[in-house]
């Protein structure tokens, strides 16, 4: 390596000697306060709702409501069927199913 190169490298290595401290930009504190207010305030409700935990809870709730409605409908069919059966037995007891007997009654008049 030439003496010239060595000298140049030394100059580069010493180029930061006596460097002045850079000052923070103007209104640094104002910008910092604004950022802190944004960062440290509780997150708005909308973003909270969009969190995975809330979204999952909402999904579970929808599924539970759906399952409840399906179960209720199924048991409703059973009730309806048993109600139908009791009406038929009542009709049979009073001979209401026999349409011809109704005609007979009319003929008697």
């Amino acid at each position, binding site marked *: *390596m030439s003496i010239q*190169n060595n000298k*140049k*490298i030394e*100059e*580069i*290595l010493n*180029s*930061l*000697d*006596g*460097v*002045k*401290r*850079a*000052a*923070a*930009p103007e209104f*640094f*504190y104002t*910008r*910092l306060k604004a*950022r*802190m207010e944004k*960062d*440290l305030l509780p997150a708005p409700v909308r973003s909270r709702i969009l969190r995975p935990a809330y979204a999952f809870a909402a999904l579970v709730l929808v599924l539970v409501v759906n399952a409840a409605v399906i179960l209720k409908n199924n048991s409703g069919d059973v009730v309806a069927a048993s109600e139908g059966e009791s009406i038929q037995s009542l009709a049979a007891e009073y001979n209401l199913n026999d349409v011809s007997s109704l005609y007979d009654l009319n003929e008697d008049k």
Partner: protein
Amino acid sequence: MTEQELIQGLRNGDEAAFKYLVDNYKDRIYNTALGVVQNAEDAEDVAQEVFIQVYRSIHSFKGEAKLSTWLYRIATTRALDLLRSRKSKKRFGLIQRLFGEGNEPVYEIPDFNHPGVALDQKENAAKLYKAINQLPDNQRIAFTLHKIEDLSYQEVSEVMKTSLPAIESLMHRAKQNLRKILEKTGP
């Protein structure tokens, strides 16, 4: 205001104490961050993060070190974090380009000129900063704190939580490496 009064004020959530802290340390923190990240906007971002972290975690500050030492430690850690995320973005960009995605050019650090460097030294300082970018993290931090923030080796050792001889050796290796880099790239 003494350091103890300042710390107590910060622990009590006193806004005047926080403003006093920022006004007294913002330049030191900004200058340190600027020396490491070599970009004014990023340095401001890092400096803001430092004060936010101090505000949040002042209760965990045990007072074993000076407040300024703690601040420098946070600043260097944050600055290195930013550099790491910048590097990983660069790597991801290169991978994307390899697979034909992401046609935008990868972000390269432009030549940096520290505002405190004398006009006749700007060109040399830009070359030195480029070489500093290639140093390992600990050498880079030691060199920046000593050369740019003008901290003594003792103060640097406190910030980096290491011994004085370790800092002397770190600085020696940093200078050797810088010399090698400059020889390779040509002065």
